[in-house]
């Protein structure tokens, strides 16, 4: 299957034709949960589970997805699932992975590959869970970590996180006469993960389902740590209509605000091809109430920084070589 090349519009046109055949019909993240209308994160999790398949243990950080999916005595999960606390999904996952490994070795569980997959939101991953995540990645557990980034603490009511984009209004970084809203640039966690020398790092978005699922499948096969950062549109927190969820994700990509790439063994590659000229970020932010207050000058700064970050990525894509290639060329 090669859905990664070609124009994204072409992909979506043929989606109805091909997608049902490519996607597992089994539901592991079942309906009836309490996510908001138009939740990109719930959609992405459903797709992730389909890509992972049955032999998976999910380790969930506290956050929207834990709260909406596990209201005792109900559960949306058909996969084995554990939640302990907010900052420790990667650490709990380390324990799950270690246990699966040793119990399999000792013959106490069936001898087959069951993958530990830890998931968390941007707060639980980039902020409070960063230490546990760094530890788990550095130790080399056979674990996939997927961050579902909706760019603020949505579960507690839209507070700023280190993943909140420049200029966005949040309840703890509100715009006012003395403030423009969030003044800082989004933390680049995929790069921090890549610096852990793990074999697979990728960005993804709920609006590109096959791209995301392909990445999940690829990461699942890695015998070691892997990280996927999935931009997950949150209509509630982004102040956009719920039916605009998919559109917002696509605009985030097409404006270069959130390009979709992967770094496999050190080699960077764009997985969804980008237009020659990026769409102006105005196309993306004008639909979202969280950016409504920005002045033309602030939008201009946002645009310039977006261009710079995009060029930094293109530079890596152009010049990066895989570790194997570099080792072979040592002479």
């Amino acid at each position, binding site marked *: 299957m090669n859905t990664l090349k070609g124009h994204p519009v072409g992909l979506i046109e043929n989606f109805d034709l091909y997608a049902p055949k490519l996607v597992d019909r089994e539901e592991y993240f079942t309906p009836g949960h309490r996510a908001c209308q138009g939740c990109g994160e719930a959609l992405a999790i459903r797709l992730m589970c389909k890509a992972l398949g049955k032999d998976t243990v999910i380790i969930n950080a506290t956050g929207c997805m834990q*709260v909406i999916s596990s*209201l005792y005595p109900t559960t949306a999960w058909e996969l084995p699932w554990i939640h*302990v606390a907010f900052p420790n999904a990667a650490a*709990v996952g380390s*324990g*799950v992975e270690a246990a699966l490994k040793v119990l399999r070795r000792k013959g106490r569980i069936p001898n087959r590959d069951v993958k530990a997959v830890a998931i968390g939101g941007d707060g639980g991953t980039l902020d409070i869970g960063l230490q*546990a995540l760094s530890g*788990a990645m550095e130790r080399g557990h056979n674990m996939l970590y997927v961050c579902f980034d909706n760019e603020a603490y949505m579960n507690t009511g839209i507070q700023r996180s280190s993943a909140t984009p420049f200029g966005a209004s949040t309840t703890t970084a509100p715009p006012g006469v003395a403030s423009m809203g969030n003044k800082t640039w989004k933390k680049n966690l995929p790069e921090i993960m890549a610096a852990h020398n793990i074999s697979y790092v990728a960005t993804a978005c709920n609006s590109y389902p096959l791209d995301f699922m392909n990445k999940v499948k690829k990461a699942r096969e890695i015998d070691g740590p892997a990280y996927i950062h999935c931009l997950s549109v949150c209509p509630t927190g982004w102040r956009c209509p719920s039916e605009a969820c998919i559109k917002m994700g696509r605009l985030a990509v097409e404006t270069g605000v959130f390009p979709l790439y992967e770094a496999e063994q050190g080699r960077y590659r764009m997985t969804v091809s980008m237009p020659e000229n990026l769409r102006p970020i105005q196309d993306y932010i004008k639909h979202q109430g969280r950016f409504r207050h920005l002045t033309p000058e602030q939008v201009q700064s946002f645009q310039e920084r977006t261009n710079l970050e995009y060029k930094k990525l293109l530079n890596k894509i152009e010049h990066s070589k895989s570790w194997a290639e570099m080792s072979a060329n040592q002479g």
Partner: protein
Amino acid sequence: MGERKGMEIALAAAEAAALCRPDVVAAYPITPNTHVPEHLANIVSEGKLDAEYICVESEHSALSACMGASGAGARVFTATSSQGLLYMAEIMSIASSMRLPVVMALGNRALSGPLNIWNDHSDIMSQRDTGWISLFASHGQEVIDMIIQAFRIAEDADVLLPINVNLDGFQLTHVVEVMDFPSQSEVDAFLPAYKPFASLHPDHPCSMGTLGLPEIYSEATKAREVAIVNSRKTILKVWAEWEKAFGRRYEPVESYKMEGAQEAIMTMGSMGETAEIAIDALREKGIPVGLLKLKLWRPFPYEDVRKAAKGLKSLLVLDRAVSFGGPGGPVASEVRSSLYGETDRPAITNYIFGLGGRDVAVEDFIKMFEKMRSGDKKRSKDQYEFYGVRGE
């Protein structure tokens, strides 16, 4: 047959844990308990124990990893002290609520600040109400025995609660003692393989750690309280079996020279050993005094305390921690609660001492005892007093 040999107690704690064949060990170094995970790492590295040893980046992650592993059906072990325990605090209560039988060796150390690495009981007292079973060892043999007993108690289908085995930092962790080590086959016979009630595996999916609304939270909390109160039965059963198998007797409140005693001292942890010598000296002078050593801190053995205190005129309770702005020492507070409803109860004096590693000598126990006797115990307006502290 087991072996009798001399060893540092922290190393013995690791040997005892290894005899229990844990599947996953996750721990983070902290004085004074570092030798426990260090020695376990050695045992694993030498291939003497088939376990996954996770060198976590914090105590928070140590307990979190233990919970993940326990959830997946593994037998787990961790060790910590003081600030490390506090760093685990967020997870402590979740461990008991999820009924995951994590076993922890806790090398008791004072809490900062000021920064202090030496012994007192302020670390465990800060985590008193997290739903863990707490055992207190007074010497090395008890550390070995209690760690093995802990797995058996924690994993019992009627219990399924986490346990901490408390061993005083330095006073126990760094002391070399001659101890009896059970053999592997003896431990295997005593401790069956862990059979989890539920575990994380795709062949039988389950959800662990769900959200509890006000409609269920109170019931969940009560269930946990019922579980830890009920664990007493299993603890006593396991101790009885231990005595049968290894000949060493364990009781929630151990008595020393209590025959005909009208007065008594109560201790918890390693100070009980020193206090015994003081009791011997006082008995030699013809004073009918005995010693009560508390071994089980949670679930608190109310009935045993009542029984032990029966007929006493006065009881000196010694605490190695303070409940700031509260009733004084936490042990004395529980003892008072135990005896409040008794018509014939001893006068209780509570001294707080031995904080942050301050040494406690035999003569201190004698002085404290004499100080208690000199006061008007029945009418004392002081709930507690600091003993041997400057700046009164």
